[in-house]
């Protein structure tokens, strides 16, 4: 494994996804400063079949990550279901026991539990908590000792910069690449409306057991979610994830994407601005993706950050990894309100 300087050496830390031990190794090899993972249960927002880490695998992952001089964060970023808090408490306990460098939490009760039970454990606020004002972030820092907040994907670059200055010394982390949501982080009910399961409490959006692809007469491919057709594509046309938010519907006399188009966020253009704005970390989405994605995207962003730090800049070419084959800078340079 290539030796890289420890986390503190980079002004903009590259935080990368790992859904499997192999993806974790790929992220470290490709130049991640820190990697985030989840346990194989409903305590994290990528609770997909065959994904994530057993407690034993997580302990080994922490060891490997620390030997490489990087950090490992554990996402426990779903909201405990009433009467089942113990599962989430055990996840926090297991993360502390494994030696994680931070846990990424969204629920206030879980933040309180972590602070009270493991006072030395570093707390990051998940994007699922949707904290986007100085008042909210300061309160969470004062009440629970939150040291970093992952900002929702609704803020412009100017808003991110202002917020970062306002909440210091709390660090800010922003998304740089990957899947987009409808920007109601932690509050989206679309998946549970159709399938009964949501990313907020079950850790899974559009659970695969509810997804069905079918070849229709004429060759079109239809995507169905719990027996409701949410999209139909000509065979060969680019596709997105089979989620309700990226489905196409007829409304007000027109047919199209009612919520959002299947497009990937790519904020690489804004790396110099994010460094100048004091943002501490850049996050790559995609714990559900394979290690080829991790290798490619992490490697490109590593080179882009290093080039930006050195005073130059290079825009990564990542079109093949993008949902729907298209990119957006999202809210960073939005002109709408």
């Amino acid at each position, binding site marked *: 494994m290539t030796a890289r300087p420890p986390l503190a050496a980079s002004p903009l830390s590259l935080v990368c996804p790992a*859904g*499997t*031990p*192999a*993806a974790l190794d790929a992220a470290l090899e490709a130049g991640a400063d820190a990697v985030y993972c989840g346990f194989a249960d409903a305590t994290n927002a990528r609770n*997909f*079949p*065959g*994904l994530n880490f057993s407690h034993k695998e997580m302990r080994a992952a922490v060891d490997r990550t620390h030997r490489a001089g990087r950090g490992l964060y554990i996402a426990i970023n779903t909201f405990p279901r009433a009467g089942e808090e113990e599962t989430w408490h055990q996840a926090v306990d297991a993360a502390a026991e494994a030696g994680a460098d931070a846990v990424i939490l969204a629920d206030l009760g879980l933040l309180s539990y972590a602070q009270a039970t493991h006072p030395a454990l570093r707390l990051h606020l998940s994007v699922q908590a949707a904290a986007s004002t100085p008042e909210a972030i300061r309160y969470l820092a004062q009440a629970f000792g939150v040291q970093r907040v992952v900002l929702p994907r609704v803020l412009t670059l100017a808003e991110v910069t202002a917020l970062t200055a306002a909440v210091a010394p709390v660090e800010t982390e922003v998304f740089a690449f990957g899947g987009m949501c409808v920007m109601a982080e932690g509050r989206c009910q679309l998946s549970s409306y159709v399938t009964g399961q949501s990313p907020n409490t079950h850790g899974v959006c559009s*659970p*695969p*057991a509810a*997804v*069905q*692809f*079918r*070849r229709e007469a004429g060759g*079109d*491919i*239809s995507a169905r979610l719990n027996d*409701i*057709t*949410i*999209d*139909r*594509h*000509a*065979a*060969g*046309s*680019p*596709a*997105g*994830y089979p989620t309700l938010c990226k*489905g*196409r*519907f*007829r*409304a007000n006399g027109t*047919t*199209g994407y*009612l919520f959002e188009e*299947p497009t990937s966020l790519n904020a690489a253009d804004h790396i110099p601005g994010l460094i100048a704005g004091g943002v501490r970390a850049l996050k790559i989405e995609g714990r*559900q*993706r*394979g*290690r*080829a*994605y991790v290798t*490619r995207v992490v490697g490109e962003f590593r080179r882009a950050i290093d080039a930006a730090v050195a005073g130059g800049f290079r825009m990564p070419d990542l079109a*093949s*990894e*993008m*949902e*729907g*084959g298209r990119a957006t800078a999202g809210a960073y340079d939005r002109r709408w309100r």
Partner: protein
Amino acid sequence: MARALPPLPLLGQPLAGPAAARLCQWAFARLRRRHAAAFDRLETLGGKAFLIDPSDLPVRFLLRPAGDNPGLAPIAEGQVAPPAAATLRAPLGALLALLEGRVDGDSLFFSRQLMIEGDMEAVLILRNAVDGAGIQLDADLGGSPAGRAITGKAIALGRRWYGEIDGLLHLLARAAAPAPSLPAPIAEFQP
């Protein structure tokens, strides 16, 4: 992609004969032995089977990774495939790349090079286990140094031939295709 490519002699009709069946079963057993942790993750599938359909070959494969009767069996063109939980269809080069974790399954899906029908939960379990396994066919299937050399050459040949041809045809097809348009109306959304 249509079945337009001439099959390599190694991978054509004879592959579905008894010798090919033994070869597939040997390869499956060897991968299972060398990647036990990945196959452990697949135990949750029980006896579910997958139909692996290389879109540029006149042969398909029935893969049953776990359960009482695990294995890999070739199915010749025209032969009726046994029931499977899901079907995965892509050019051979893409399937090999997926098996070795050299390409991301979602990226193949987004570009429609990989078509999936059936039990998505089972497919994700398979994909995630395989992606993390670190399979390298030439290293995994070569028994002796001589066998390794022969197997490696055959796999590299197939990978290069189908990968390059498929990549070229894919580019041409994309260049020639009209801009995608919205499909026929879908179900009315009833909030």
